[in-house]
């Protein structure tokens, strides 16, 4: 523990930066995925565009995506924005599919009932469909959260200061403890984020508190129904 105690400030700074770099894409992918999920359920064409587009983007390995982005969004190669945008793209790719599944999981009779008692389409969406889609949305964002936190560290290759720096610096200087500290903090962050999301889920959906997604143990995201066309989104995180 000699290295860790002597470098506490560095570790704290990198951890905070890691959290900041992870939170932005997680929130962005949640917010963006809901309209995309809604769009995907409109017609076969929009579904093909959203879902196929998402899985194609998800196929691009992270390092190439980090360095291709500057060309598209006009940033410098070693700009942090590239990392944030790339992680948001991966997040949206996972989450748009989740949101589409979540919204289509709402029972048809419920939607009809809401129409019958006079909800406008907008308030039906916000007050009936969205809350009922909540558990599946929560499961999706938990997957995004865990894989985003793990992936932030690759950003060190394009000069971002996060926990990945501990891997890079530890390897270069031959300090195994530094690498291990980085891995452990990264895992802890993933755990804390996951617990926080479950807690947010309970607060936002008190009617679900006793069952389902809110009660599951850490990272035991409910197993999605097998989708033969693309089973990978659930098991793999881009690297």
């Amino acid at each position: 523990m000699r290295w860790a105690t002597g470098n506490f400030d560095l570790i704290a700074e990198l951890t905070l930066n890691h959290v900041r770099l992870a939170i932005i894409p997680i929130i962005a992918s949640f917010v963006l995925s809901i309209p995309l999920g809604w769009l995907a359920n409109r017609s076969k064409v929009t579904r093909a565009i959203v879902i196929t587009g998402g899985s194609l983007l998800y196929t691009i390995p992270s390092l190439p995506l980090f360095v291709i982005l500057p060309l598209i969004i006009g940033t410098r190669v070693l700009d942090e924005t590239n990392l944030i945008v790339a992680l948001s793209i991966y997040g949206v790719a996972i989450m748009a599919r989740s949101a589409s599944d979540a919204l289509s999981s709402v029972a048809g009779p419920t939607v009809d009932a809401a129409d019958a008692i006079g909800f406008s389409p907008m308030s039906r969406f916000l007050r009936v469909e969205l809350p009922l889609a909540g558990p599946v949305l929560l499961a999706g964002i938990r997957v995004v959260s865990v894989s985003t936190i793990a992936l932030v560290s690759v950003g060190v290759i394009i000069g971002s200061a996060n926990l990945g720096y501990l891997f890079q610096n530890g390897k270069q200087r031959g300090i195994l403890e530094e690498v291990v500290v980085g891995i452990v903090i990264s895992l802890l962050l993933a755990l804390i984020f996951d617990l926080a999301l479950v807690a947010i889920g309970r607060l936002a959906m008190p009617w679900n508190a006793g069952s389902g997604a809110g009660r599951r143990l850490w990272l035991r995201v409910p197993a999605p129904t097998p989708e033969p066309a693309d089973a990978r989104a659930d098991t793999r995180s881009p690297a």
Partner: protein
Amino acid sequence: MNLLLEALRWIVDPTHWTPGGQSPLPIQDRLAEHLAYTAVAVLIAAVIALPLGFFIGHTGRGRQFVIGFTGSMRALPTLGLLFFLLMVFGYVLSYDWAPIIGSTIAFVILAIPSILAGAYSGLESVDRVTIDAARANGMTEWQILSQVEIPLALPLIVGGIRAAVLQVIATVTIASYAGLGGLGRIITSGIGLNDYDLILGGALLVTALALGIDGIMALLQRATATKGLTDLRVSEPQANQPTPNQPTPSQPNI
């Protein structure tokens, strides 16, 4: 877009493909390394994960283990795992062998969860009624597994391998940052030399490789689907749900 054209020009420039070029050239050597690392790692991972996945899927034992394991593995930072193993093997192995052994083990570890999940969920998606019918016909457990469950589960099994291949292709790219070969070497050299042709050319090559291999695996996945069982391209009706006009024994006939 100018930069993109230049990067494409860099890729098709024949001098970058002539043998004996200065590192990170020639391109085909890096491509061959990338494919070789990926193939070896996925093969080893399949040898470990497929039997385990079949066992869990067939018996239903250890189901929670698979769900928990694949979930937790997602939290593991690939770069950290890679560097950790490279360092640990650096202590015990020679300078020549440590990088290749250490990184191959990292690739194998990262490939296992997808293959395991594919094998397990593939077997689980097989209709229970079909398995009962096979058993009632006198098939042994081994015959049920090899002649009924695995053939029906093949698209999902291939899907798991497909995910693992992509994961390893992506991780091999990162591993070049730690001195391993592969196409990622072109990107990291470019970052070091501040040469955007190299960076973008390498990135485009890796992306093309990933999309190309993924496309081939997608075709393979489609080709392994059992004809007449269900159209696996659409999610409805799902593979494990009987169609409404075929009541299962558990459903009372009204």
